[in-house]
């Protein structure tokens, strides 16, 4: 008899996810799905608002990566103004975007994922959180807290408010950098470098024991999409680009499938399917159709796509990363390692940008009236490529909005990954803690920006229902946060 195992998250703060696992008649996993019931009315209620409001408005889409939305949104607004923003403005936006990626990756790696790695995927869930890490490996926990706070402080110094800074505006940023602010940020970086050195060497030593995870966590062929440097600006073509660049797609063998796509023309290469099971749109690579055009975004996808990071220390780490995983290019488990490489890159790049001569330039905003009625803004958020696409009327009032959010890009891949893990760990209709943890852990590889997946302390609160095909509840398990 076919059955369904439902893992339902019970805390609903911003969005919540639940997982259904369908068993076939022999009790094996037929299919699994990660349902995301995140509110999607955003694109609707921005209609009728002045576009100047969009950066702040869209930053409210997400309490976890508001800066990423600010940046993508402001870039879309620059397009509406049809201006080239001052160089210092672009660089200051780069810095705040890097700081955001730094703090978000630190949250994902240290707070959410390191408990599994330090204590084991089957360890006592009551202890398996950052406080448990603090007992077993105090240095690692302290490093995580410190690194995250460096990212947050940089955002705070630049943006004024840590959670929703309104500093990034259409045409640039609304306040230049002061010497004092620059020096404060620069002074925080050396400790960050120390932390990254320690953490990378710890992880590279420990990764040997995660062979099982590497084998089973999202290890399947797919495309990978990210921005890479276009080569027109300071970076070399194909280097890591988090603020602007062109879209590149590679395949499961690391070969370039499509390159040099102007991200403004994203809708020529990306289609969007809306599945019944989820409010999250499922984008796919158009030339390959749905669902074969499944692609992944995020840290691993970015590192799969680039030729180098363009900064010395992280480039060495990147080369080593590439060497280590030559034969397991497709495992989503590598997102964790990729996050470490990117955090190092963020620190280096911030330092690099802040030491440039023009970073203190006072003219940091281009003023203009709207000159175009349509604009697309794209940047790399911690979780992957983020698209904002607006249409306005001649008075600057928003008529139409489309956003492709990073977590949405990964939705097809997340389903596939959950299925893969479930196949490996669900063999009977008994619900076991270890299985749940792995389903949860594979979701965390993608670090989806849902509050359920980002409980800083403790594990995801879970509610699991085992359903017969006729809807009868066969078994029920509940785990509170």
């Amino acid at each position: 008899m076919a059955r369904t195992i439902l893992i339902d998250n019970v805390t609903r703060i911003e969005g919540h996810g639940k997982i259904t696992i369908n068993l076939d008649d022999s009790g094996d996993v037929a299919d699994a799905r990660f349902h995301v019931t995140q509110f999607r009315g955003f694109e609707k209620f921005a209609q009728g608002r002045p576009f100047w409001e969009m950066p702040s408005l869209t930053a409210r889409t997400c309490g976890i990566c508001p800066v990423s939305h600010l940046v993508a949104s402001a870039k879309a607004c620059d397009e509406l103004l049809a201006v080239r923003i001052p160089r210092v403005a672009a660089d200051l936006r780069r810095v705040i975007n890097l700081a955001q990626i730094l703090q978000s990756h630190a949250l994902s790696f240290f707070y959410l994922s390191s408990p599994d790695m330090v204590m084991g995927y089957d360890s006592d869930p009551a202890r398996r959180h950052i406080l448990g890490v603090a007992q077993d490996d105090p240095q690692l926990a302290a490093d995580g807290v410190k690194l995250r706070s460096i990212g947050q402080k940089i955002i705070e110094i630049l943006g004024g408010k840590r959670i929703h800074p309104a500093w990034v505006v259409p045409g640039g940023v609304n306040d230049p950098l002061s010497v004092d602010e620059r020096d404060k940020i620069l002074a925080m970086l050396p400790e960050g470098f120390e932390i990254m050195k320690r953490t990378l060497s710890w992880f590279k030593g420990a990764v040997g024991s995660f062979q099982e995870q590497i084998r089973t966590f999202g290890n399947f062929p797919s495309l990978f999409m990210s921005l890479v440097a276009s080569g027109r600006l300071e970076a070399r073509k194909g280097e890591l680009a988090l603020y602007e660049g062109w879209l590149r797609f590679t395949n499961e063998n690391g070969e370039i499938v499509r390159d040099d796509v102007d991200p403004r023309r994203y809708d020529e290469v990306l289609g969007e399917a809306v599945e019944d099971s989820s409010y999250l749109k499922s984008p796919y690579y158009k030339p390959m159709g749905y669902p074969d055009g499944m692609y992944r975004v995020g840290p691993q996808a970015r590192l799969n796509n680039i030729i180098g990071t363009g900064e010395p220390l992280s480039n060495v780490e990147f080369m080593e990363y590439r060497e280590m995983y030559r034969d397991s290019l497709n495992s989503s488990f590598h997102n964790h390692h990729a996050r470490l490489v990117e955090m190092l890159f963020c620190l280096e790049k911030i330092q690099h940008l802040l030491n440039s001569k023009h970073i203190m330039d006072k003219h940091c905003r281009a003023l203009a009236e709207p000159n175009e009625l349509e604009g697309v803004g794209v940047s790399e958020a911690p979780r992957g490529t983020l698209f904002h696409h607006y249409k306005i009327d001649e008075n600057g009032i928003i008529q139409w909005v489309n956003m492709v959010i990073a977590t949405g890009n990964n939705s097809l891949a997340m389903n596939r990954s959950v299925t893969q893990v479930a196949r490996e760990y669900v063999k009977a209709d008994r619900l076991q803690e270890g299985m749940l943890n792995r389903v949860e852990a594979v979701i965390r590889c993608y670090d989806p920006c849902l509050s359920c997946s980002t409980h800083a302390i403790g594990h995801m609160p879970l509610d699991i229902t085992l359903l017969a095909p006729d809807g009868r509840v066969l078994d029920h398990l509940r785990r509170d946060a």
Partner: protein
Amino acid sequence: MPPLVGVAPGVVTLKINGVDCSARDDQTVLEVAREQNIHIPTLCHLEGLESVGGCRLCLVEIQGMRGLVAACVTKVTEGMEVQTSTPQIEAYRKMIVQMLFTERNHVCSVCVSNGHCELQDLAVEMGITHVEIPYLFPKCELDASHPRFVLDHNRCVLCQRCVRVCDEIEGAHVWDNQGRGIHCRVVTGLDEPWITSDTCTSCGKCVHVCPTGALFEKGRSAGEMAKKAPQLPYLQNIRKGAARG
């Protein structure tokens, strides 16, 4: 200078919150209280414009008078005893501010006036952390037809400052009201797009007297619209002088 026409004002004595004060008899309770550094919250009142007593935030209690009266439009009289703050007054003021929030759509975090808004300041002053009455969520339009300014009805508190400044100081009378009660809206011309107004001089006075984010300059992002209140008493005197001269 020609002599001022009219009767010379007399002097009265009164008590505000138990404090003895003397004042001219053409002054309002609000003016005298301010001279004495006694705080009375206001919203529709703006020095330099005729008071209309619209918002009722300046409610005070006067011994011997039934009900509460608006301090901005009540003239002082001999022997008056005024209380500016009682539990009842405080409760009414809080309720008024809450109702202002619920009548329109105020989303401070993304509002151009965030951090520079008189309505927001009032809420802070009164310790309003949440609103106890249901929001109406009216559907409100924006008028962004003017090349430099935007009117967003979502943030309007109907204080009439824009209407008065445009009429009394600029002399253009672009603004007026339409509808009653919660259906009341400020309008430009005969409820036509702002850009079509023949009399608007684009002076921006309405924008800068507006206490909220309802009137703002184009191109401002969240929190960027700090108003520069024009020197209205000065402008008013100039106008008076011009009228006489």
